[in-house]
């Protein structure tokens, strides 16, 4: 098809459109919904009995803080990457990746200080934690993917990475307030490993979902 014919065809199909709200506003809406899901999960299942005391422990506090940083940086990054020309800074996607990477690093340091082997019976994996992480990440991440796919993510790979990280951060942060085990082996195998599996699924399925806007 000639370019002139394409222009005529596209112009004929023009209909009024409602411009999307700015990425920061959309991120704030998502953040409110994600916090609602997280609080709902914590209230429904019940927070750990020693939450106040746990918040005073450096490992718990540090781990929770980096997850909140990942949550607060990944979602705006996903929204900005989905709008052409809005997400040009490399720091935009590097910060959430670094924050999420710091999370297992903290528990590895705790483990190294304790000197305990990573694999040891009884198994440090608990299905309840995995299910909480998966469900919370699915709810928040799914909503984020749905909102982001309404825009035009030119780089679906990176957008899927940061959107998945946001969902994972929401799921693991909420689970940390519920799970009473601060054993680093449980945190690494029960929480981090589950998060890695969710991240893989998010990248595979999410990237494909974010490419659909290009199809006619």
């Amino acid at each position, binding site marked *: *098809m000639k*370019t002139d014919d*394409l*222009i005529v065809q596209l112009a004929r199909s023009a209909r009024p*459109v409602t*411009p*999307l709200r700015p990425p920061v506003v959309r991120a704030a809406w998502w953040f409110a919904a994600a916090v609602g899901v997280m609080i709902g999960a914590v209230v429904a299942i019940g927070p750990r009995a020693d939450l106040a005391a746990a918040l005073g422990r450096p490992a718990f506090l540090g781990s929770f803080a980096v997850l909140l940083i990942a949550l607060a940086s990944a979602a705006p990054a996903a929204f900005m990457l989905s709008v052409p020309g809005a997400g040009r800074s490399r720091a935009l996607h590097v910060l959430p990746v670094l924050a999420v990477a710091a999370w297992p690093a903290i528990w590895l340091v705790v483990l190294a200080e304790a000197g305990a082997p990573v694999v040891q019976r009884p198994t440090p994996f608990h299905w309840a934690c995995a299910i909480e992480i998966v469900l919370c990440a699915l709810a928040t991440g799914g909503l984020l993917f749905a909102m982001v796919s309404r825009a*035009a993510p030119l780089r679906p790979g990176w957008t899927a990475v940061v959107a998945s990280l946001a969902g994972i951060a929401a799921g693991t942060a909420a689970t940390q307030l519920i799970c009473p085990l601060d054993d680093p082996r449980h945190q690494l195998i029960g929480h981090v490993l589950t998060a890695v599996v969710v991240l893989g699924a998010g990248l595979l399925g999410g990237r494909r979902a974010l490419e659909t806007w290009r199809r006619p």
Partner: protein
Amino acid sequence: MTPEQERQCATFMRLAQAGDQEAYASLLVLLTQATRRFTRARLGGVPWIDDVVQETLLTIHRALHTYDPARPFGPWFYAIASNRLIDAARRERRVMSREIPRDPALDVAAPADRDEHLDVDAIHAAVRGLPPRQRDVIEGLKFRDESVSDIAGRMKMTTSAVKVTAHRGYRTLRKLLGGRRED
């Protein structure tokens, strides 16, 4: 894109978002020229500039709702144009790396013992029927034994552009000659 052109595009864009088809057509014409200039400045006179232009226009059409009228138009447009350009360049590189070694013209220009029904006059007639640029490249490569770089220098093209043009010519020739053989 000059600041004046950018303002003009932003105005047309606001009207296009409101459903004004004439303003939208004017915007697409302006962006066609801007995309051509943008592509030429980065890749030179590649023969697939129109592919980049058309894909950019289609992407703009699908992403129309993502332009925020409160923000400058240039970054929005160039993000799309450079994304489409990179995609098109990658695709062409993939095509070249996969398809050039299987040079179809070697089959059609091979001695008659490889195909008893090969008609040399038909080949020459088919080559004469190609678009001028493709014809010049194929005649140079296959009839005058010129190298790709010689042709690139003579025609003021990049070597990649010569290979792409030759590839397209071969594809057309294959269609033309394939049809004749079946007859």
